[in-house]
């Protein structure tokens, strides 16, 4: 494991460091002569000045004491071309001046320096600077006097460097090794760990996490996140190779909390990592078996194929132990355990409404078949063929972890590479990986260009690029960029006034951002931005219940982001602005209309919409309660209160609010949009299923026509009506009557009452095809362009990935159900929140 994944283990190195203190060096320098180390001192000085003063030093080679040259060392000239081109180890290159050096261990340093300098001055060779280095301490004042005196007397600069200078250079410039080597200082060494880059980062993260975990109030009401943070801390502790009791303690805490929360995925992940650590880091087989048994109990009914994969990984470790003969078949219960995993995988593989997850399960099943039939050539071949088919089928499935599986199967070539069928399987992997990488590279370029165009306010071209980028990057390994592209599309649609399309994209971004890795949100910030955008869009569309639902979700995400240690002050401010804008909206409503919202006050409070609640109270004329909530200085008299709300009412935000509401309290609601001179109205029953379908349909129409060339489309109607409803007489999905001319009164789309169930269970591709047919029928019905001309325009749409951009994320109702749920979109839920709280 350490060999295959060194990144998971500690990269800290254990280094030894000499324990050389200032006092030891000073003592050693003071006692040089008693050890007859004068020559060592000269060698030390020469090498020290090479490092600290100038690199081009020539030692004297004659008898001791300066010899014939009268200097212990001097500089030699260096050609200017070398001076310029070489690195000399110091900021200044060698000087072309001639410098002389004298080294001495004599106690009477003043006499010695005068004598040495006089000797040097008597030489024919002329020096511009002379350095005298002594192992003695010199008084500052005396040293300066001597330097000045000698400089004046002999006409060159004289510098005296004493013991203090030497010690300073050794300690500060880390010259300990030089001193030890040349002066022969005997020292002891201490071990000092040097954190590797991975451990340094892990340690920082670990410290931050522990600090946060020591403040349980941060997690109040959010044990899911608390468990997740304990799991993260345990994994960090494991990689930092902390003591076992510490690692086990953190894993146990994570598992206990996960069990309390009851999220199967989280429980399995915690158990998996604990078992995996116990096996690979602590090599404790019996504890591993125990944790495995505890974890596999949570597998039945799990919703993610990945959970099965984790348990299967643990199963593989047991399988390996049997082949090594460390445990018996009876004890390991391999067949029974594998059968339990396969049962769950088989169930998940049949859930075609979740094609990514279903195919993932199918792939894992094929892999288990491979392991089971490893000794049977035909079974092995068949398993590789199944795996090959799975990979081929995954091409259009964005969140299927294709690259992860390809990398894993490729690594497994070491073990399975010799089996029949592997080469053909490998060739398929190479081909798919090549196409996939090419597509994601193209997507990344389109993303960069799209963002540039958006910055330049070129909305249509920006949307074109980002829409394509979103589709091409919608793969597990490039999901983050795909989410960013989707958010960019949403912003572009919003700026173009296409709020239903913007809403559809923001919803897609939010849903994609909800993906978890190791039971923690992978993209909480993106999810927050998408949720906040949904809030703004619902406000613009005049849908109060949906706004409240998204606003509350945004607060949940904000708290999560805060718990992860981010500074979320600015994000919080934006949510407060949303609150004020809703308040502004209430203040601008007609008094009769505002009455519809009487009773919503506590619901608003539950969603942290305190300002909106205040505005609603005022708009309803409940001045007594307004006074209770406002600061005293604003409630001195009625004029002050009126003035406060009047200023609020006239805020510029009021201009961006819708003129009318979508009749949230009525049995039927009307949604609308206008595109290319045509008004599209949808009358829908005020129930989650029909409403979500209507929203989806308007989003598709806006997205499809956003980049359509109007000059190529001759719309010959000014209005298109849809009625979306549910009734026993309806159909799932309603018939489109493609071969019939349009009903002048509009399109009646009557579903069966179990429409949501149908949308949930039906393969999304079938639903996308339905929307595609509806869109094409709508175009054919509302335009008079010859079909040949229409085909040309549609061909252009196809090339620009318009259909994927407009229809690819449908049905959006499932994303809404996953994130917000069914009830929260209805105003009565928030009234109920009022009465129950």
């Amino acid at each position, binding site marked *: 494991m350490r060999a295959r994944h060194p990144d998971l283990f500690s990269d800290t190195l254990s280094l030894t460091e000499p324990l050389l203190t200032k006092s030891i060096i000073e003592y050693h320098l003071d006692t040089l002569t008693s050890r007859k180390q004068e020559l060592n001192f000269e060698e030390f000085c020469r090498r020290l000045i090479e490092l600290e003063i100038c690199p081009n030093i020539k030692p004297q080679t004659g008898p001791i004491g300066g010899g014939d040259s009268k200097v212990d060392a001097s500089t030699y000239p260096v050609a200017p071309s070398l001076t310029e081109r070489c690195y000399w180890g110091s900021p200044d290159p060698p000087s072309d001046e001639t410098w002389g050096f004298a080294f001495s261990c004599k106690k009477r340093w003043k006499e010695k320096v005068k004598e040495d300098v006089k000797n040097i001055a008597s030489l024919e060779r002329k020096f511009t600077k002379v350095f005298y280095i002594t192992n003695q301490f010199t008084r500052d004042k005396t040293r300066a006097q001597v330097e000045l005196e000698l400089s004046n007397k002999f006409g060159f600069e004289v510098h005296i460097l004493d013991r203090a200078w030497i010690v300073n250079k050794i300690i500060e410039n880390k010259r300990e090794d030089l001193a030890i080597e040349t002066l022969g200082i005997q020292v002891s060494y201490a071990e000092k760990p040097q954190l590797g880059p991975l451990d340094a980062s892990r340690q920082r993260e670990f410290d931050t996490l522990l600090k946060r975990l020591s403040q349980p109030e941060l997690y109040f009401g959010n044990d899911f996140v608390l468990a997740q943070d304990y799991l993260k801390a345990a994994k960090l502790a494991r990689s930092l190779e902390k003591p076992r009791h510490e690692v086990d303690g953190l894993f146990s805490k994570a598992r206990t909390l996960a069990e309390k929360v009851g999220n199967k995925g989280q429980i399995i992940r915690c158990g998996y990592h604990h078992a995996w650590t116990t096996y690979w880091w602590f090599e404790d087989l019996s504890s591993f078996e125990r944790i495995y048994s505890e974890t596999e109990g949570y597998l039945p009914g799990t919703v993610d194929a990945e959970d099965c994969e984790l348990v299967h990984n643990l199963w593989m470790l047991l399988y390996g132990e049997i082949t090594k003969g460390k445990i018996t078949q009876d004890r390991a219960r391999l067949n029974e355990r594998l059968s339990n995993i396969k049962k769950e995988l088989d169930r998940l593989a049949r859930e075609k409404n979740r094609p990514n997850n279903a195919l993932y399960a199918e792939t894992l099943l094929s892999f288990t078949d491979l392991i089971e039939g490893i000794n049977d050539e035909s079974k092995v071949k068949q398993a590789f063929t199944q795996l090959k088919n799975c990979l081929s089928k995954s091409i259009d499935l964005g969140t299927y972890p294709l690259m992860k599986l390809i990398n894993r199967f490729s690594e497994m070539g070491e073990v399975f590479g010799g089996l029949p069928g592997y080469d053909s399987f490998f060739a398929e992997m190479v081909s798919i990986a090549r196409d996939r990488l090419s597509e994601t590279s193209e997507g990344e370029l389109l993303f960069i260009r799209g963002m540039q165009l958006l910055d330049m306010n070129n909305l249509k071209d920006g949307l074109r690029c980002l829409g394509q980028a979103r589709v091409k990057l919608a793969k597990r390994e490039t999901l983050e960029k795909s989410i960013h592209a989707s958010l960019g599309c949403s912003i572009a649609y919003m700026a173009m006034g296409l709020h239903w399309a913007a809403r559809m994209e923001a919803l897609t971004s939010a849903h994609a951002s909800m993906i978890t890795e190791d039971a923690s949100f992978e993209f909480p910030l993106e999810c927050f931005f998408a949720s906040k955008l949904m809030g703004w869009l619902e406000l613009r569309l005049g849908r109060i219940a949906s706004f409240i639902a998204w606003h509350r979700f945004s607060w949940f995400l904000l708290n999560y982001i805060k718990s992860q240690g981010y500074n979320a002050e600015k994000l919080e401010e934006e949510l407060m602005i949303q609150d004020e804008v809703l308040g502004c909206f209430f203040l601008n409503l007609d008094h009769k209309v505002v009455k519809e919202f009487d009773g919503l006050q506590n619901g608003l409070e539950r969603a942290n919409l305190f300002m909106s609640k205040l505005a609603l109270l005022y708009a309803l004329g409940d001045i007594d309660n307004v006074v209770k909530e406002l600061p005293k200085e604003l409630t001195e008299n009625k004029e002050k209160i009126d003035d406060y709300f009047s200023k609020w009412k006239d805020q510029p935000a009021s201009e961006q609010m819708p003129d009318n509401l979508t009749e949230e309290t009525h049995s039927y609601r009307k949604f609308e949009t*206008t*595109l290319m*001179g045509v008004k599209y109205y949808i009358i829908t029953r005020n129930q989650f299923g029909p409403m979500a379908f209507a929203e989806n349909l308007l989003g598709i129409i806006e997205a499809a026509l956003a980049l359509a060339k109007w000059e190529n489309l001759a719309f*010959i109607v000014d209005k298109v009506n849809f009625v979306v409803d549910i009734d026993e007489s309806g159909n799932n999905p309603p018939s489109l009557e493609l071969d019939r001319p349009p009903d002048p009164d509009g399109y009646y789309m009557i579903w069966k009452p179990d429409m949501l169930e149908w949308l949930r269970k039906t393969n999304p591709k079938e639903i996308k095809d339905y929307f595609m047919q509806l869109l094409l029928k709508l175009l054919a019905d509302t335009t008079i362009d010859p079909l040949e001309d229409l085909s040309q325009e549609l061909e252009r749409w196809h090339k620009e990935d318009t259909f994927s951009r407009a229809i690819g994320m449908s049905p959006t109702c499932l994303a809404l159900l996953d994130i917000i749920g069914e009830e929260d979109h209805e105003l009565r839920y928030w009234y109920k929140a009022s009465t129950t709280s």
Partner: protein
Amino acid sequence: MNSDTGIKPPLHRRFDKNRAMEFIRNRYRHCRNKIAKQVEVLQKDAAFREKCKEYYKRGYKDWVILTTILNCMINFKIQELGLKLPSEEVRNKYLELSNMLQNTVYPTNKFLENMDLQIKFHSILALNTYGFELRRKDFKPDVVEKFLRERMRHFDFDLPHKPLFGEPPGSWPKM
């Protein structure tokens, strides 16, 4: 919600000024060949000229009025012959019917009664001229007219001449 795609309609790609002028020239030629006598009668009628004043105000050119007169006359002829409308028989006989009109003159009051209705259909019939495909039956004449006016500049062009039904009545343009 109003999107920015709903603000200024562009010309449709089938718009072509030269072709539009050619269609107009053809219409004048066709009408002069078939209904010149009837036009002469109508030019002299003050009530009809008053009606045309309204049409001119609405931006209709002489060729629109002339094709409407022609359509009215074909309708009158169909009624005379007792043919059923709309039918394959009528479509097949269209040319034959229009040829029958050369020496026919109907009383002015018949036109005063039918012109307003027939001029509405002008726009729908004009869609065929441009090669559009009429895949639905519930066209709203005002929506069609708006489309032709804004996106085909259908009512913007004419051959230079004094209005045929103006005060005083003008003459046929040079074709």
